[in-house]
């Protein structure tokens, strides 16, 4: 599609990579497809990439990315955001609808989709708003967005909760007509009026308004029941509490069509980091406790939580270098996601690399309806015949996160200064390297 590779070679021989962390193999990539996978492959016309010691994973898929364009190009653009995504190993991102103007019409959705095609670092799938202007009072034209060139399938008012139960029910029902899914930002607004941090020991000690777990859990429980009632698909954004994991586990045990995501930061960070009031740790939903982190890791490991989604939320420096209360909510995450999952899930023995591929590529691709037509574009098994969307990852690397080196236009990474394992060495989008040697290749 976009990177047609006319300037670059269309044939690559990736030598000695370990697909899903298994035995080393050679992968021959030709015209955007993995044509052969095996030992000792030869191809005279191919460019050679030595991938010994590198793990090959299918290109990662992010269900939850704020690209900020149109409207806040000072924080991020589709160009810089997708560059960040490619450097993080993503070959597809879902651009959240809370732009300015809001992506609540076919026109805006198509604009974002086209910007993605022009940038060419990864596929950009616009998420449509559920309600007009994220206003929470009437449905946006969900069908028009579905029928547009952007082929919207995921709808979300993310940043705001569709708190009106009737509206939520109608949205869930309505998108059944085109196999859509409603991705809910679960936050009961009255219980979180002015809320700043997780309600618990830290909020009481620090004198910051508490954000109770029940505000998230009550909405998730309600929405699971609504999804079951109308037989539709619910996706729960950024699950952050142990109680939410339990509710989703229960809903899944009923066979209901409920899926869920967790962010990298909720898998690694806890609310005690707020102690010096540095707004780099201010995020919605808030950082929770070690008990919640452990439950989220367990939930992701056992599949209760389907996938990792970054909730990459770039903000300019001046929106974070302030008092806690007035600072913006959000953290960048695209360029650190895989490394954080490595640290939180692989190093702790909860997931192997096949599991990481499942939670960061296969399942989010399925939830985002990315593989509706023919062969899966994303989330393949890296076998012969698969599209060559793949990432080569060095699990032995280790270094300190420095946001100044990030391609994202913003620097609000909560992992700054933290030592994390791993390094994304290369990312291929439909057979074309967009990242090589850890740097943008184009």
């Amino acid at each position, binding site marked *: 599609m976009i990177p047609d590779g006319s300037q670059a070679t269309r044939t690559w021989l990736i030598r000695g990579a370990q697909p899903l962390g298994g035995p080393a193999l050679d992968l021959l990539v030709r015209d955007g497809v993995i044509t052969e996978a095996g030992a000792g492959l030869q191809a005279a016309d191919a460019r050679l990439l030595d991938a010994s010691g590198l793990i090959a994973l299918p290109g990662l898929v992010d269900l939850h990315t704020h690209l900020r364009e149109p409207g806040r190009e000072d924080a991020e653009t589709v160009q810089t955001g997708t560059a960040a995504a490619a450097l993080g190993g993503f070959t597809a991102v879902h651009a959240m609808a809370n732009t300015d103007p809001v992506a609540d019409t076919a026109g805006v959705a198509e604009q974002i989709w086209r910007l993605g095609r022009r940038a060419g670092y990864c596929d950009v799938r616009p998420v449509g708003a559920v309600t007009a202007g994220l206003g929470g009072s009437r449905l946006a034209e969900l069908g028009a967005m579905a029928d547009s060139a952007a082929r919207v399938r995921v709808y979300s008012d993310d940043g705001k909760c569709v708190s009106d139960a009737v509206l939520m029910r109608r949205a869930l029902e309505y998108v059944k007509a085109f196999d859509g899914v409603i991705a809910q930002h679960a936050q009961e607004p009255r219980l979180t009026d002015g809320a700043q941090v997780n309600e618990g*020991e830290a*909020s*009481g*000690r620090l004198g910051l308004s508490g954000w109770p777990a029940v505000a998230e859990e009550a909405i998730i429980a309600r929405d699971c029941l609504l999804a079951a009632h109308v037989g539709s698909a619910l996706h729960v954004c950024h699950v952050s509490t142990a109680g939410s994991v339990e509710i989703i586990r229960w809903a899944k045990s009923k066979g209901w069509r409920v899926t869920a995501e967790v962010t990298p930061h909720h898998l690694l960070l806890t609310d005690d980091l707020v102690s*010096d*009031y540095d707004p780099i740790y201010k995020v919605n939903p808030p950082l929770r406790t070690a008990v919640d982190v452990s439950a989220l890791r367990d939930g992701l490991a056992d599949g209760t939580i389907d996938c990792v989604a970054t909730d990459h939320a770039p903000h300019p420096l001046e929106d974070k270098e*302030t008092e*806690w*209360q*007035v600072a913006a909510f959000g953290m960048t995450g695209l360029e650190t996601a895989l490394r954080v999952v490595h640290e939180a899930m692989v190093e702790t023995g909860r997931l192997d690399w096949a599991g990481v591929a499942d939670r960061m590529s296969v399942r989010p691709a399925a939830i985002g309806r990315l593989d509706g037509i023919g062969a899966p574009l994303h989330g393949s098994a890296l076998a012969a015949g698969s599209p060559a969307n793949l990432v080569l990852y060095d699990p032995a690397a280790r270094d300190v996160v420095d946001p100044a080196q990030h391609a994202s236009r913003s620097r609000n990474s909560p992992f700054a200064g933290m030592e994390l394992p791993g390094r994304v060495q290369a990312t291929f989008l439909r057979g074309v390297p967009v990242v090589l040697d850890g740097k943008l290749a184009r």
Partner: protein
Amino acid sequence: MIRHLISAADLSRDDAVRILDTAEELAQVADRPIRKLPTLRGRTVVNLFYEDSTRTRISFEAAAKRLSADVINFSAKGSSVAKGESLKDTALTLEAMGADAVVIRHGASGAPYRLASWVRGSVVNAGDGTHEHPTQALLDAFTMRRRLGRLEGLRVTIVGDVLHSRVARSNVLLLDTLGAEVTLVAPPTLLPLAVGSWPCEVSYDLDGELPKSDVVMMLRVQAERMNAAYFPTVREYSRRYGLDASRMALLPDQAIVMHPGPMNRGVEIAAEVADSVRSTIVEQVANGVSIRMAVLYLLLGGAESGTERAEAAR
């Protein structure tokens, strides 16, 4: 001695006792014909007040002036954002002016921590949002020690809106450090959810606590709490948690009644209680100046002045 005073938890027992003892010495100055000491001559203390609080600002101003410091009052009404200049830019301005200490009152919890990361001088928290007000706790402890002769083992009951009270937070931390036993009394809606992790006891029954209290400290009830359904009516609050004359009669003979001010007479405290001999409310104000003198003296005492620092930097 510590460099900043932002939380009462910053103070070790030795630090806290040293501040109280120093305040005791400095209180003598107030009785002299010339109430001024040359100690902080040439030093600059900035009062950076983002909230109106005449009593606290005047108290800090008097304290700094009695120590011969140059005082700059920087009053910024409303939030820094509303004013158009960020807290960081204000901090850099103060830094450029060579402030040796910045006394900050701010509506946002934690603002003094942010400030401390942007200036080299000492930061003194004069009340931040619903977080802390450590010099208030110090002057309260000073008042208790003066009236009752000790702090160790003293039974202190703090009554009211603990959830939103910076005075309660600082008092619980400091009094625990100094060996007093604190009990918080409030309707459950006005206690933090995790108050069980604080170094104090909790009760919902004021009448049950008063007979065992050496000190009862009444907190101000903000009018806006009523709109958020923390309690049904002001009258009901006053009946259940207000200190009137008949409740005061439940206190042991020597017990004192404190209030950080400003008071809502007739709400959390009845006029005859506020004006009774048990009340230390006026003393608290006077003691505030001595405590703030001690804090500025000890924080700045060993440090070189802004001008000297600038010279050294050249």
